[in-house]
């Protein structure tokens, strides 16, 4: 209970509260990678405050808020688990959604026992697509097992990782799939309330979801009796106010509660005490959108896709430096080289410096490691991550120092400011590399001290992720880094 009159301080946490997006150019890392395509636009974007990191238009970077073009969309997996409607140009009307088979999964789930639904999800091997890769079935089971009078299902639609736009297109082009998936999840875990936490940077998705939620309510998909069953489910849309760390689920729950989006200490796990202290299931949009297909086709069919440990399909967002930028549904297991050279068709210009997969808080994969297979554990072994499936190619018009400077600039601006190493360490690193770009040299000892403190003592994945990025640079680009030091 926070007294309602004093929202001002907490609002000041969010850089886009009360800021219109119109005319804002994107400063995301994908647009940074492509900055030389439109240097003037980039410089304007870079000079602007508050900064806007990633509009989810990485396929046309450097991007501006109001320019709407559709990316190339293609299904490369054996089954279109996620993009069957999107690839057709989108289904934004309930009748059309149902005509394309929508709603059958929800009806089927409501006819099954809760345990059976959770069993299907668990057996499918579906892992969280938001970055952590945690087993969806185990999460669902934990929330289902929590005894409470109130539970929540929350869709994490804070697709903040620069370089990704898959969730945006899922929501804009196939919004009922998300609602259907959430209704199934809510039924399975015993929740009657749901929230979609959507980032403000996606105004189009907001407009679509608002209409969709209204339609779903009118049609009885939501409300006291979901599709005539005894299951009650209400779903609301919460629009973020601008904060990258809201992608972290506990920070996001704090944001929904009107607090500062700082991460919470665990335990307690949110499956036991989440939103407003109630057991809460949080899955990201892509994870949820796989649910209807799994319920309809069975866990076995889903598990047959991909690899044994990384089952199913994954959406990849390829940035504008690729010859064929766009959104792809692929199966796990193909090599990174295949993604870069076959799916993306190689670079439009220049030589490949490296690919950033899964956002800036992981590594940069050097060309020499492109034969690594695309999978959770495989990428982890080279200090990188599947993350959200964003694939940003950097060409040799970007130097390592410029990239490090940009990542730490982003990291510092998005740090919540709670823990010491990230609060003060990330801006110091950003300043150090600004000096390097300006021709200066920095202390190697201070770099190592700060990266170690970030890696070993950060409170959450934001600071640790920045350190992982730095260590990947140390590991894969030692000579370039050495040149920055005195």
């Amino acid at each position: 209970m926070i007294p309602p009159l004093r929202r001002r301080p907490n609002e000041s946490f969010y850089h886009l509260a009360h800021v219109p997006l119109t005319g804002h150019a994107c400063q995301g890392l994908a647009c940074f990678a492509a900055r030389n395509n439109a240097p003037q636009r980039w410089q304007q974007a870079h000079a602007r405050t508050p900064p806007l990191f990633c509009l989810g238009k990485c396929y046309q970077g450097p991007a501006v808020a109001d320019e709407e073009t559709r990316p190339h969309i293609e299904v490369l997996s054996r089954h279109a688990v996620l993009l069957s409607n999107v690839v057709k140009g989108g289904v934004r009307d309930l009748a059309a959604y149902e005509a394309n088979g929508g709603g059958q999964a929800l009806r089927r789930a409501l006819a099954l026992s809760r345990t059976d639904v959770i069993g299907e999800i668990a057996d499918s091997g579906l892992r969280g697509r938001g970055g952590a890769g945690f087993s969806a079935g185990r999460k669902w089971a934990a929330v289902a097992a929590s005894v409470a009078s109130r539970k929540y299902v929350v869709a994490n639609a804070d697709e903040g990782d620069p370089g990704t736009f898959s969730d945006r297109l899922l929501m804009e082009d196939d919004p009922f799939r998300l609602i259907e998936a959430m209704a199934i999840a809510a039924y399975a875990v015993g929740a009657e309330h749901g929230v979609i936490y959507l980032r403000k940077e996606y105004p189009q998705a907001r407009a679509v979801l608002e209409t969709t939620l209204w339609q779903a309510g009118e049609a009885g998909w939501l409300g006291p009796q979901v599709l005539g069953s005894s299951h009650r489910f209400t779903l609301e849309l919460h629009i973020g106010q601008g904060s990258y760390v809201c992608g972290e689920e506990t920070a996001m729950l704090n944001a929904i509660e009107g607090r500062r989006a700082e991460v919470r200490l665990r335990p307690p796990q949110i499956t036991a005490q989440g939103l407003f202290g109630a057991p809460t299931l949080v899955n990201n949009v892509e994870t949820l959108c796989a649910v209807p297909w799994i319920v309809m086709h069975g866990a076995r069919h889903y598990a047959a896709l991909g690899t044994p440990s990384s089952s199913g399909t994954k959406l990849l967002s390829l940035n504008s430096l690729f010859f064929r930028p766009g959104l792809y549904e692929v199966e796990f297991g193909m090599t990174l080289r295949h993604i870069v050279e076959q799916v993306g068709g190689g670079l439009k210009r220049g030589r490949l410096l490296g690919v950033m997969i899964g956002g800036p808080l992981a590594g940069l994969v050097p060309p020499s490691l492109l034969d690594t297979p695309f999978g959770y554990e495989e990428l982890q072994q080279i200090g990188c991550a599947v993350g959200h499936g964003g694939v940003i190619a950097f060409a040799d018009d970007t130097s390592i120092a410029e990239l490090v400077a940009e990542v730490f600039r982003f990291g510092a601006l998005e740090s919540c400011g709670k823990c010491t190493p990230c609060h003060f360490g990330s801006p110091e690193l950003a300043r150090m590399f600004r000096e390097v770009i300006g021709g200066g040299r920095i202390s190697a000892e201070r770099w190592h001290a700060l990266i170690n403190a970030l890696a070993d003592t950060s409170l959450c994945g934001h600071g640790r992720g920045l350190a992982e990025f730095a260590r990947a640079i140390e590991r894969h680009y030692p000579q370039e880094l050495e040149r920055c030091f005195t």
Partner: protein
Amino acid sequence: MLHITLDDIRHECAANMTILQVIQAAGRDLPALCNDERLQPAGACRLCMVEVEGAPRAVASCAASVEDGMVIRTDTPALEASRRTNLSLLAAHYPPDAVAREPEHPFHRLLAEYGVTPGGEARDPLFHDDSHPYLGVDMDRCIHCYRCVRICDEVQGQFVWWTWQRGEHTYVAPDGDTLLEGGCVSCGACVDSCPSGALFDKRSIETPDRWTRSTCVYCGVGCQMNVGSHAQRIVQVRPADSPVNRGHLCSKGRYAFEFTHATDRITTPMLRESGEWREVSWDMALDYTATRLREIVACHGQDATGVLGSARASNEENYLAQKFARVVLGTNNVDCCARVCHTPSAKALKTMLGTGAATNSFDDIERAQTFLLCGCNPTENHPIVGARIKQAVRKGAQLIVIDPRRIELADYATFHLPLRPGCNVMLFNAMAATIIEEGLLDSAFAAQRIDGLDAFSNFIRAYAPEAVADACGLSAETIRAAARLYAIAKPSMCFHGLGVTEHVQGTEGVMALINLALLTGNLGKSGSGINPLRGQNNVQGSAQMGCDPNSLTGAQAIPDARASFEAVWQAAIPQSHGLDLLSMMDAATAGRFKALWVFGYDIYLTLADAARTAQALQALELVVIQDMFMNETARAFGHVFLPAASVFEKDGTFMNSDRRVQRIRQAILPIGDSRPDWWIIQQAAQRMGHAQGFSFDGPQAIWDEIRTLWPAGAGLSYARLESESINWPCPSEDHPGTPVLHAERFANGQRATLVCIPSMPSGDQCDADYPLLLTTGRTLYQFNAGTMTYRTPNAVLQPSDTLDMAASDAQRLGLHEGEQVRLTSRYGSAVLPLRITDTVKPGELFTSFHRPDLFVNRVTSPYRDRLVKSPEYKVTAVRVSRLV
């Protein structure tokens, strides 16, 4: 016990501890700047990181629970290096001159230990505030531990400090230009928690060279505190950890101590000669007092004299005061200020349940599911209890507030019942009627513990909410809803204040509350009960020690305990019936009562209907005032002034609201020629031929005599009080104390009887000439007669009493905010500044009575409680007019 290995050494520790607590318990020091035992761990500073074998990465020891078999390392090179790096980051903006000025400050020593030099980099933005009288702000020194933000949220519940912005732009500031604008209640918790000196006690210029643990001298909560003194001056007070206040104080306890050294404090005995006060020696003053008392007894009889004990004084001193009255003067005419506050509670509880004190302990606040607050305003008058209730409600407990005014806690309440003043009995009866009618009775409890249910059920039918709601000014449905909540969401804990007791039906109001607890089984259980919030530090003790005409020490009726007391005292206890305070006044006016000795109590200023009090005091031949200041009683009517030592200048014990006896300890020597009350009483007794029985060498010896006479306090030795916080009854040294009364049986039997109480109208009634209804009470920053608080910078925080009025009334009367207005009752008038507020309803007014010069009790009503004569301070018919 768990077994762990800490830096290669094996330790045993209890479960439910954090790793940091284990490390500290092992006598090891680990920097943990954002850690405060009063708060939930934040894990922000990252200095207390440790490595745990098998954990994927280092963990913050403040936030991690210890587990059996853990192998913990605190001192690896990597941990030490990270600690140094993080400290260097915290110090980058820290001002070097602060370190130079105070090298011994713990944070500065930590920097030195790690070889970290502060960088002094500029900060922007930076909060400044020089305006608060107590809280100093130097945010240049903020190290972003957020303890101020967290303690203001998690302990005080005030939300003054906020974290603004994020990342490196993060800063801490209130939502307002100053702390006070941001809603600060000046509890000082943020200062107490701040590890760097960004927040400090600005009036504490000298560093204390001695700390003395003691008990707060203000309200009856009984907070424990550490008193810092320097060169025989009190320079700082800090909260101490105790089950009562858990390391928290309010603005009065924490800051309002400077009265001790006020320039107008009287530290020399004085006699009034030809209308003028003259300083004299103790011998002269005491000889004069003894002689005059003897003369008056000789001339008018023993019962023409009387003594008033003091809620300010210790148990030992109050014990001696009543012993003096009974043994030396030979009269039972002894009373104290409990008469005007909670004697109705004591009477009601004693009559119905057998013990005249709170049934439960403050420890139960966190165990209650529902709170019923009646006629009390804890966030202002019992702020630590108020803060604890607020936190409990924030964590899910339900709250019912019954109060005519929209007090702060009403904002947190499930139901606020703003009843018309004077309708308590009617409302409580309506709640009882709901409980009976709707079948919410606790039948099992009723079967085993209650008598009189049938008669009560018949009687209460007439009080159905629909029948009385209009008269109460409430809706019947709200009354029913509140009754249901209280009866169903158990355990339900009731706290009440003077809004219940200071009425013509004060005692009966408390009885009606006890009926509710009996019907719902909310007695004898943790988290339940009927709990009067005592207004003053030792008002419970003062009466309990025997400053009551009808009972001896331990609230033992004179006929029952006479023999044992006479045996110990080796003196006869007078047979005549004693006069209470109000009866003494009446007898004085009638010419039957001639001499009064008053300890630490300004009766002229504080008794209702001051004109009547003046008439009585005027008639006395001898008024002996024992006080620290020339109070209004002394100024107008005193003959002898005996300068008393303050609470900081003596040893002894106080008894708080939840039946704990707690030590006060001498921090400085008595100032000037002032003396502790116990010394003064003994000197007078010796001069009146009673050296025997009044030759104790100190408070502990007095207390030991009390323990022999008060069976329920026998186990409360000074030795135990050093380390334990015990609720009486505690009949022996090996008894653990009794936090919850009436668990298996009531103190007066297995069963309690429901009492049928017809509701009666208040004494004073509005009419065309006096159309408005005035209630009086206290405020956060001032205390009672203002004797202490107005001699501190609290006078800046609240400069004046105000007359609180609803906007519609002000508009109708053509009055404006801040304007001086005349408040007139049938009994007198006062002039007060007007405050327009939505906390009072139209037709009702509120004011406090803290400022002697405004003298609000010239206005208040002469009506008294039907059973124990407490004045009806809460209902006076008045009119308000513009000054012409």
